[in-house]
């Protein structure tokens, strides 16, 4: 049972995750490796630029390092001659300081610009890769993953990676550089004192290891918690009509608050880890400073070290431990980004269940529709019971076939298999004799177009939506297609005609108008096989009649699968398949079936009676 009872149960225990994200430690480790590999592949194209940033950083860091050294020079070497009235050394030191500051400025500026560009290029690349991969993944995957989660991956996870890109990389390199180089300088200045300092390293490492392990877990939780917040946010506001009409607001708020609080707590856990880690690093540094101060003072007291050296040493020491703070911040951001990257790596790792063929077989040239064959097809959704079992039908090219049957009988499932939304569990679906699994996607999509029950329009103009299936269509083509199915009049009457924005999911139109546009869009795409799944269910009778009349011309020289409950649509079919519980129970031309006394005849009588 899932934690949140309201979400209900699903077949997969971890419906929220990709296959790669199993919870066992081995899978987690695998995913870490994959996300590293992903990172490497993202960064690889920028090797040159990265080298340049490192050079700029070195420059900046060397120039920055010069500061305390110049202070030492000014005190130890500049002041004595100055007392004697010779300012040259001091002036030189001063000029060197200005030069160093300018170099540091230039280096920093150059570095920040360049690294911002690299970082953004990497992000852009990652975004596109994940987006494209989401599009490659099958409908079946998306059904369980849900759109909200896809949105979460491409927004929130990206944000957390971009935080690393924005604020982190330079800190890392710079801090790393300065820790290493300061260590060198310290050793050079006074080896025994430096060794005292280096004693702290085992503690720092141990602490970092602890933080790494704990924060990885914490940030992984954060990513999952935020995804749930986003899923609920997107879904509940997407269905705001139902929310309002059924007074769901309090319950939604309750659920949202719980998810939001989960997310807050997951974040809190991660934030508290860094709240322990970072001051602990600071503590170690401060202890070292106090130690060096006492020990170094004692050394100076006994004449083993010069005052200037101790002063410089202490200055450098702060420069040694301060970057550690930044390193810890970076490490934190890195952990957070890695958790996000793991999620994305999990997505990228998911193999499409309906893949592009490795060795594609082109379809033969179409001439008046295409033949469709189902041979011993068995199909069930995911782990559910089979919806179709040993389903066999043969549809010759150019035939108009009506699928009739009770709701839930499996008609849409047949249609979706022809459109290869899913692959059959057993058996084959063929188009002009070619197994669909071997047909290249672009060819298949040109050959088969489906108007679904849940026709989706995109935000944008009517024209954009109509052109979706055939981008090169001219305005005249659009109007002709719309006119053919009787949609032109209403479109022309919209405030800006074909240029009217239909809003998100076509909300600007009435349901029937949406169906007409979706219909016209499919017709315009001019496929060899047209699937109409209850494509006219929301239309009023006269409009539907118009469409039906147009169908005779539209379907000419095409193969058509027509699913409709109103049998007037079926009358134009060459053949009717009555489907019951995933099996074909009657098959024949409508005229024959009507008189046959079978199910279709009953249905037909029932339908006739329902008319005026």
């Amino acid at each position: 049972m899932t934690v949140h009872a309201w979400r209900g149960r699903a077949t997969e225990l971890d419906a929220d995750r990709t296959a790669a994200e199993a919870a066992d430690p081995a899978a987690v480790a695998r995913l870490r490796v994959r996300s590293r590999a992903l990172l490497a592949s993202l960064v690889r194209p920028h090797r040159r630029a990265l080298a340049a940033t490192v050079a700029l950083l070195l420059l900046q860091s060397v120039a920055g390092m010069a500061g305390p050294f110049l202070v030492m020079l000014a005190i130890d070497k500049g002041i004595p001659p100055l007392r004697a009235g010779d300012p040259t050394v001091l002036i030189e030191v001063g000029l060197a300081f200005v030069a160093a500051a300018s170099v540091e400025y230039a280096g920093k500026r150059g570095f920040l610009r360049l690294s911002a560009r690299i970082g953004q290029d990497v992000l852009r690349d990652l975004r596109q890769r994940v987006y494209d991969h989401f599009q490659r993944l099958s409908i079946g995957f998306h059904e369980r993953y849900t759109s909200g989660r896809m949105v979460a991956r491409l927004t929130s996870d990206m944000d957390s990676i971009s935080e690393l890109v924005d604020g982190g990389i330079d800190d890392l390199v710079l801090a790393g550089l300065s820790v290493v180089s300061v260590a060198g300088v310290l050793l050079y200045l006074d080896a025994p004192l430096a060794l005292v300092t280096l004693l702290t390293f085992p503690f720092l490492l141990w602490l970092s290891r602890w933080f790494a392990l704990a924060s990885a877990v914490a940030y992984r939780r954060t990513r999952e918690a935020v995804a749930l917040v986003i899923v609920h946010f997107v879904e509940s506001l997407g269905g705001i009509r139902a929310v309002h009409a059924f007074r769901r607001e309090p319950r939604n708020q309750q659920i949202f608050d719980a998810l939001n609080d989960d997310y807050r707590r997951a974040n809190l856990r991660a934030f508290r880890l860094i709240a322990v880690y970072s001051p602990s690093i600071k503590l170690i540094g401060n202890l070292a400073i106090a130690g060096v101060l006492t020990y170094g003072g004692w050394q100076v007291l006994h004449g083993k070290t010069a005052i200037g050296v101790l002063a410089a040493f202490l200055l450098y020491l702060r420069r040694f431990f301060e970057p550690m703070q930044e390193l810890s911040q970076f490490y934190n951001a890195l952990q957070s980004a890695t958790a996000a990257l793991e999620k994305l790596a999990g997505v990228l790792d998911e193999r499409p269940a309906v893949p592009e063929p490795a060795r594609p077989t082109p379809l033969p040239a179409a001439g008046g529709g295409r033949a469709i064959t189902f041979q011993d097809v068995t199909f069930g959704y995911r782990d559910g019971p089979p919806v179709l079992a040993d389903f066999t039908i043969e549809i010759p090219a150019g035939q108009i076939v009506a699928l009739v049957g009770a709701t839930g009988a499996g008609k849409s499932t047949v249609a979706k298999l022809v459109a290869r939304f899913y692959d059959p569990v057993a058996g084959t679906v063929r188009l002009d004799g070619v197994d669909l699994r071997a047909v290249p996607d672009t060819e298949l999509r040109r050959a088969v177009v489906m108007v679904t029950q849940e026709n989706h329009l995109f935000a944008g103009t009517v024209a954009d939506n109509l052109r979706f299936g055939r981008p090169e269509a001219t305005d005249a083509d659009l109007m002709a297609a719309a006119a053919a199915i009787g949609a032109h009049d209403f479109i022309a009457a919209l405030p800006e005609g074909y240029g009217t924005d239909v809003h998100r999911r076509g909300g600007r139109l009435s349901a029937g108008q949406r169906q007409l546009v979706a219909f016209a869009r499919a017709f315009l795409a001019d496929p060899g096989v047209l699937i109409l799944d209850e494509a006219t269910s929301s239309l009023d009778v006269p409009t539907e009649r118009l469409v039906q009349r147009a169908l005779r011309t539209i379907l000419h020289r095409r193969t058509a699968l027509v699913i409709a409950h109103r049998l007037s649509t079926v009358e134009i079919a060459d053949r009717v398949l009555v489907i019951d519980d995933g099996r074909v129970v009657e098959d024949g031309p409508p005229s024959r079936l009507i008189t046959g006394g079978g199910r279709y005849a009953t249905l037909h009588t029932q339908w006739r009676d329902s008319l005026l």
Partner: protein
Amino acid sequence: MRTKRDHQSGVRNLWRLRRYLRPYRLQFAGLVLAALGGTAVGIAVPLVIRRVVDGPIAHRDPHGLIALGALALLLGVTEAALTFIRRWSQSSQALGMEATIRQDLYAHLQRLPVAFHDRWQSGQLLARATADLSVIRRFLSFGLLFLFVNLTTYAVVVALLIRLHWPLGLLVAGSAVPLVVVSRRFTRTYLRTSRRMQDEQGDLATQVEETARGLRTVKSFGRQAFMSRQFGAGADRLRNTAVDKGRQLAGTSAQFDLVPNLTLAAVLVLGAVEVAAGRLTIGELVAFVTLQLMLIWPIESLGWIIGNAQEAMTASDRIHEVLDAPPSIVDKPDARAAGPVAGEVRFDDVWFSYPGSATPVLRGICLTVRPGETLALVGTTGCGKTTLVSLVPRLYDVTAGRITLDGHDVRDLRLDSLREVVGVAFEEPTLFSMSVRENLALGRTDATDDEIHEALALAQADFVDDLPWGLDTRVGEQGLSLSGGQRQRLALARAILSRPRVLVLDDPLSALDVHTEALVEKALAGVLADTTALLVVHRPSTIALADRVALLADGEIVATGTHSELLATVPAYRAVLSEAAEIADAA
């Protein structure tokens, strides 16, 4: 000037968020103190160093050395402890504020009317609830705090420096002038860029959501490449803006680094001169320089903080764009509960046009549905049926005229009680990815399993029993794991659950096969017998359920009467409804 106004509104909107800080104001004061304390301790360390160099070492005093070493140790531990306290409570405070704002934002979004959601892109709303909020969180916790702390540090250190050696101290104080100039130039452009970036982030989120929702269509037309290009273009825009933003920030942070470094160079040279002249000890100079080095980080990070503040301002602007949108459909102050109703629904010269559109969709609708009566609404596609029925539960409010329930204007009733009385089934069943039970109950969390089963039986939706976990089975997003007819029957069951007095059913049987339709109609007839109902229908068969029919054409009621009356007297009615007539015409 535009930027100035942007800036003012940004500041104002950011300031308005202080209410979220209020519950934490003691904590915040504590934070500021801890942060200041931490900084003060940090500042004290160099002073201790000076004492060590000038005191025990110069006077060869081992005891003094040990005492000062112990002091340094104490200070070090205190600094770490204060940092720990600050970070620990800062995280709970920042996250608490973020969560509260998000909660309020969501609550407000739920209150906003359907018309608002029609207009707004969901990705933009989401970006506000996630990305923008984390920008604000960062500012309210770190940015704001360090703005305080860094400015205070700056002032204190400069005061100390002036005390140590006033001419050099004044020099350091004067370095603030170029910084102010730099930051003013910076904020002018950065504000606009960060706004653009946040908008583009929202656009991209919208694009992702559209793709996710319309993936079947994308796949069906094989348009992945097109979508990918479109997304790529959006990603490019975002990338370019981000790079632009990075460029601006790079220039400014580098300048914020340069100024203190140059000041340091000047101090070093002049300080050495002073030492040579005997007006300053070496120890003092070391302390001065060390102190001054302590300013570099606060100043440098000020560049970042200013950037963060700008982003927080634009983010806050964006959030307030939503929070300030008036929830136009709300209870009146003196709204009354609907109470037990007879169920008379009357449209009284109702006009309606969608927001932002000039042409009215409904024009002077006058219509009365008597208590217990079932009225069928008939008309061609796009004539305004859905619009008309969605006015009853106040998904939209009428533009003119009024709708009354038992004689009371629906706008005078409490929304929750109105919507309790009115049950709705939309023409497109809206289902969510949650359990069947939750989908059916939605707001009526008190619905019992018996009631749910009764509604399912009436809607002929017993297929639920065959689902793997019955009522507990999770319905796929948008109900897409069900067949169209199954979805529609769930939506119907939802509408009749707990038997509302007024039912609004918008084309509720369109996805059903003839046989199932007949069964549902039979069951529904029982429900409708004593329920006031508005029924949008296309099929003649369903009209049998209605006592009366109203014919809607082009936003006007052109005829009302019984089915047979209209059939006999109104040719337009026959044309809309009769397939037979059409067939005859065609022949």
